[in-house]
């Protein structure tokens, strides 16, 4: 008779792992850094590149230290865990990208806020960076007038031309590749999404439904107000809407777990972003993405369970979504 270890489990496992998934997010950020560095070294200013490294370095330093303090409190003394498990690298790079033009004090505060929120609310992971971004953006709002052609529609006799919408902030290429040093590249965001989708490492339903809802609302709004395609283009390429939807909207830990739930989640956040867009353009995505998990995830998880077993709920949800989109459109027309 030969003895064996008794172990009740599934004896084969997929080769996917949490670290692989999280590392893929990290790899996706590298092209953003490279693009900024090379573009600015060749055509832009070296100062901008230095600022980028400065902001990443500071946010990395502060984040690592703060995270390690939290780990020490939890009696986890191994510093490598900070890098391997806590996604500090990803968080610091995202924060660094967002705070290139900020002063050191602001970078420190935003990094601190991010890591503290991440550790206090344990269900928040990469999207804790949204709180850091909020600090940076609120400060910018406080110090600058950040009105863009998206908000001051009232003052324009007609809107939607290339000259009016795109040229003042650089040409179409600048927008698509994020070369105007204002927003992160939408093209690279789309490529990152395709990569993560291909590697089954992203809750893609959220991104699809979010962008689609936002797109439909903006398209209808544009059509009702006689605006042409450049208006829509600007809506989609500004405010880091694509970047944030790929990297923060899909944060694993605090978004719905079923496909159905993820679609509903994306639709609601798409509507929320569209409304906020006309109040606070650059903050719209950030605020929506912060509010989403707080208000929606738990309840959507419950609803999606009903959806799985009773198909009539599909029609109900579809009808509610259409009504909400129409209400949003009316609201937006009143707002402007």
């Amino acid at each position, binding site marked *: 008779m030969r003895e064996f270890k008794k172990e009740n489990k599934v004896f084969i496992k997929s080769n996917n792992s949490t670290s692989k998934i999280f590392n893929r997010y990290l790899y996706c950020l590298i092209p953003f850094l490279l693009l900024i560095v090379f573009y600015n070294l060749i055509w832009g200013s070296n100062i901008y590149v230095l600022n980028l490294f400065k902001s990443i370095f500071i946010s990395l330093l502060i984040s690592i230290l703060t995270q390690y303090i939290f780990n020490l409190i939890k009696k986890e003394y191994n510093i490598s865990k900070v890098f391997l498990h806590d996604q500090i690298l990803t968080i610091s790079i995202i924060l660094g990208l967002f705070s290139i033009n900020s002063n050191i004090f602001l970078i420190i505060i935003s990094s601190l806020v991010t890591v503290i929120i991440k550790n206090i609310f344990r269900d928040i992971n990469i999207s804790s960076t949204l709180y850091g971004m909020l600090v940076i953006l609120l400060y910018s709002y406080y110090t600058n007038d950040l009105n863009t052609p998206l908000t001051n529609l009232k003052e324009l006799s007609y809107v939607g031309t290339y000259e009016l919408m795109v040229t003042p902030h650089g040409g179409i290429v600048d927008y698509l590749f994020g070369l105007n040093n204002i927003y992160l590249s939408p093209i690279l965001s789309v490529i990152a999404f395709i990569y993560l989708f291909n590697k089954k490492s992203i809750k893609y339903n959220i991104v699809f439904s979010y962008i689609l809802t936002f797109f439909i609302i903006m398209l209808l709004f544009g059509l009702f107000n006689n605006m042409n395609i450049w208006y829509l283009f600007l809506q989609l390429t500004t405010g880091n809407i694509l970047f944030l939807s790929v990297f923060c909207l899909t944060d694993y830990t605090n978004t719905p777990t079923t496909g159905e739930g*993820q679609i509903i989640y994306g639709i609601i956040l798409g509507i929320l972003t569209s409304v906020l867009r006309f109040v606070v353009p650059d903050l719209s995505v950030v605020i929506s993405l912060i509010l989403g998990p707080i208000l929606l995830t738990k309840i959507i998880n419950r609803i999606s369970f009903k959806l799985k077993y009773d198909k009539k709920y599909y029609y109900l949800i579809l009808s509610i979504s259409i009504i909400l989109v129409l209400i949003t459109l009316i609201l937006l027309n009143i707002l402007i």
Partner: protein
Amino acid sequence: MVSIEDKKISPSKKIIDDVKIQIIYIPLKSKLGYVYKPTVKVGDYVCIDDTLGINVTTDFALKSSVSGTIVGIEKKYISNGHLVDCLVIENDFKEKYRNKLGKKKDITKYSKECFLYMLQNSGITGMGGGDYPTFIKYSTNNKINYLIVNGIESEIYSSSDNALMYNYAEEILECIDAITEIMDIDKAYIAINENNSVIIKKFLKHINTYPNIKIYPIIDAYPSGWERYLVNEITNLNYENNPSEVGVIVNNVSTIYSIYELLKYNRPSTEKIVTIAGAGVRKPANYKVKIGTNFSELMLKTDGYSKINNPVLVAGGAMMGKSIPTDELIITRDLNTILVLEETNQKSEKCIKCGKCSEVCPVGLMPVMIIDSNDRTKKLRIDKCIGCGLCSYVCPSKIEVREILESMKEK
């Protein structure tokens, strides 16, 4: 459904059928919990097909697979990981029958009553892993429209059914035809994985003689052999508890082959093909052995184990199998695969709420929600879990989701 890498033994590889097993163990309790009251005692001489015990509630017989002397009752492991009492028979290798009948030429010439009576007395149970007495499936008052023969082996190492279909395609077709004739069933389908072209070709070679039997290719993914999925995929019907509610009977190919032997030779098969594989086995192959073979004796008489770190013995496939603490494991009708695998010891991490477990669950459960909501498990239909293990397989945090659900179910 999820595509999982394939580690099957080719069906054309020779089945090893020359291992002589001296001591046979016949469990007095089945995987599903049917208890058999022994009708023999220590010292009795038994022949093949002699009744060894009776399940009183179903009046179902337990049969001997060898001829020899009852030498005792011992506790051994069976496929569900339980230690159960087994009748120990010392095999005299004489293969004696009490009343051996001749080979029947036309196996369609049985009445329905006779067929059911033979099934009940034969001890034939589901051989695809279910272990359910086959006569109960056929003793339904509902009109049966479809017979589905399950030839799907979605577990990655299991290939015993493939080997059986490869070697006995003609016999299987003959038996299906007989069953449809006897039970007045309109149509029969043999479900086979669409990529299993070798087996499909084998059947296609003979199928023209049987116009009411069709091959139904099924997607090559796990768990495409799940009964509920097959019934829905092939007939578009859904049922609550049992396929016979909607006029369908599902049998595994090995069960069909066992019925074939019953109809042809008036006795059920006494042997069974079992896949023995994994890194810890020196000679992975399909073995044809007597029902009641002790795995430890089989390993002693074959090439045995190879050296690996932390070996685990698994009765059943890598996904749904049970870990057994010693190799005193009895090969029963329902056991198709025995694996000796290397335990990888992957550490589980915190759930990242990725939802992959919900995405893949064939029943449509939301495992992560069930785990998080201790008090609402019933509402979240935990009882519908079929234990396929896909949730544990896909989990990137390497959480044993199925085991957690099973322990919650038990509570």
